[in-house]
């Protein structure tokens, strides 16, 4: 799948001028509130009409101002999961799900309905009305409804925004399942770093109506120099790892990655499953010797790959650990006291608690 978006639209004093390309898997549109993320997916769905530009999915043109093409929303075959679910209040859950089949332009796959119901755990809810569902249940039904219309592209607009922390991780788990089981490319709008890190393969970074950077998730999310990016507070490294062991007694998981292992609490995954961990630069300390009698559970041996420029007394240090690169934000004084220099052998210290995924 390839999605090409190159659009311009004026909305009052705000100017949306965005161009990016996305492939298969999950592409995150990431940026602060008001960066224009939702406007972009509304344009892809045909709900918002750009002033000029083009939108192409897999070679089929959805919008092209030069050629005067503007495919109406119902014929775009784009699934949309809205922030507020938008279930039809006059239909039962079953009715909402079946509605997607009523007008779908895609041929029906046998057993698809049952599959989606099972995947999202909707069997118990089928006879209920949307008015009686919790926010999390509503969002699951909305995801199921969008999937059942068999779209060629799925748009998710901050589907977790209206949920509390506990429900968020539950729905996030369902979205991960959907990503791995249903091979539909997903465009995921979010301003939450943890969601993007967990789900996205590609990240399109948006700021003030523009796509300022596009790239692999670990690359974009690791950078702190981009406007509108995670920023110094949330920025860090993204590590692809795999669960190798679950210690049920202490509720700790051991994750293996290219360069070592990490101990992380509360990982909701079975041994063998891939997980993605974000290690914020501000949570990484540097030691010259392996510390003894210390509570820190993750001591990783590596070498300094580079030392960034100072800003406000703080310096970002890149540490190579095997094939992975960790980032550490330390004070300039610490760099001086330890005499840090590129190539130097160091230990990166990461508290297990700082990696809590909940």
């Amino acid at each position: 799948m390839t999605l090409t978006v190159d659009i311009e639209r004026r909305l009052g004093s705000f100017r949306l001028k965005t161009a990016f390309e996305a492939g298969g898997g999950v592409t995150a549109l990431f940026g602060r509130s008001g960066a224009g993320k939702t406007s972009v997916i509304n344009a892809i769905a045909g709900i918002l009409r750009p002033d000029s530009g083009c939108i192409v999915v897999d070679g089929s043109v959805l919008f092209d101002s030069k050629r005067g093409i503007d495919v109406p929303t119902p014929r775009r075959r784009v699934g949309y999961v809205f922030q507020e679910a938008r279930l039809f209040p006059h239909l039962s859950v079953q009715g909402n799900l079946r509605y997607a089949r009523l007008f779908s332009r895609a041929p029906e796959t046998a057993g698809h309905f049952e599959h989606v119901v099972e995947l999202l755990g909707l069997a118990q809810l089928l006879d209920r009305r949307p008015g009686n569902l919790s926010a999390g249940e509503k969002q699951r039904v909305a995801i199921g409804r969008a999937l059942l219309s068999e779209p060629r592209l799925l748009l998710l607009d901050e589907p977790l925004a209206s949920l509390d922390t506990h429900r968020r991780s539950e729905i996030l788990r369902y979205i991960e399942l959907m990503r791995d089981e249903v091979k539909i490319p997903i465009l995921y709008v979010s301003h939450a770093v943890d969601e993007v890190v967990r789900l996205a393969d590609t990240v399109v970074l948006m700021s003030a109506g523009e796509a300022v950077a596009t790239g692999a998730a670990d690359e974009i999310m690791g950078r702190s120099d981009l406007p509108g990016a995670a920023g110094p507070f949330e920025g860090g490294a993204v590590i692809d790892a795999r669960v190798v062991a679950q210690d049920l007694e202490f509720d700790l998981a051991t994750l293996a990655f290219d360069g070592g292992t990490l101990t992380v609490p509360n990982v909701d995954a079975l041994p063998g499953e891939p997980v993605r961990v974000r290690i914020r630069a501000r949570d990484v300390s540097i030691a010259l010797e392996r510390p003894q009698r210390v509570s820190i559970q993750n001591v990783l041996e590596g070498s300094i790959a580079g030392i960034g420029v100072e800003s406000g007394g703080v310096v970002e240090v890149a540490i190579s650990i095997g094939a992975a690169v960790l980032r550490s934000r330390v004070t300039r004084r610490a760099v001086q006291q330890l005499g840090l220099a590129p190539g130097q052998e160091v230990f990166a210290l990461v508290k297990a608690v700082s990696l809590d995924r909940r």
Partner: protein
Amino acid sequence: MFPTLEELQILGLSLKVALWSVLVSLPLAVAVAYSLARVNFPGKTLFDAAVHLPLVLPPVVVGYFLLLTFGRRGPVGILLEEWFGIVVMFKWTGAAIAAGVMGFPLMVRAVRLSFEAIDRKLEDAASTLGAGPLAVFATVTLPLALPGVLTGMLLSFARGLGEFGATITFVSNIPGETRTLPLAIYTYTQVPGGDESALRLSLLAVVLSLAALFVSEVMVRRATRRIMGDDADGRH
């Protein structure tokens, strides 16, 4: 104490006139309400005012205009007679037209309000699921507006039952044809010894109105519950 056969026939005629006026004006009222709620077109304010005119004009004036339009020499009257052989003058169909016109603004108002109250985001959601504009209207907009449509039907029905001025001006007061409940009550009060009949018919009108109110209330509540889920039933 019980109503006579003649009085029951008057009641039957009134129900027939009011029901037909509601049924025939309903599709038109829904279309007008939808265009007022959703479509912007030049002259909309004027159109809106014209729709509301029967609400503010003296009913006799409306009846007179109907006479001019639907009468034997009126533009619509001539066409109706030429094309379909239909004459509405001095017929119960004419009374139904008068009732429909007088109730029209009430129906449009109720339906329009419920169209305006619908969350249009739901319509966007339906269109992303493949529903075209007509399908969206039939499967989302209209079902969600149902309580308003039912309210509008009741208001127009009640207005039609009570219609007097426009009816008597337009189709006169012909026993068995255009003498509906209010016209009959008026007639009985004008003749000696008619007081008893007038009172009985008035009581019938009260019963009828209460029944219509009750039925519509039940239907609206049921429709609302269907739309909002069981939570809207007052058990929070």
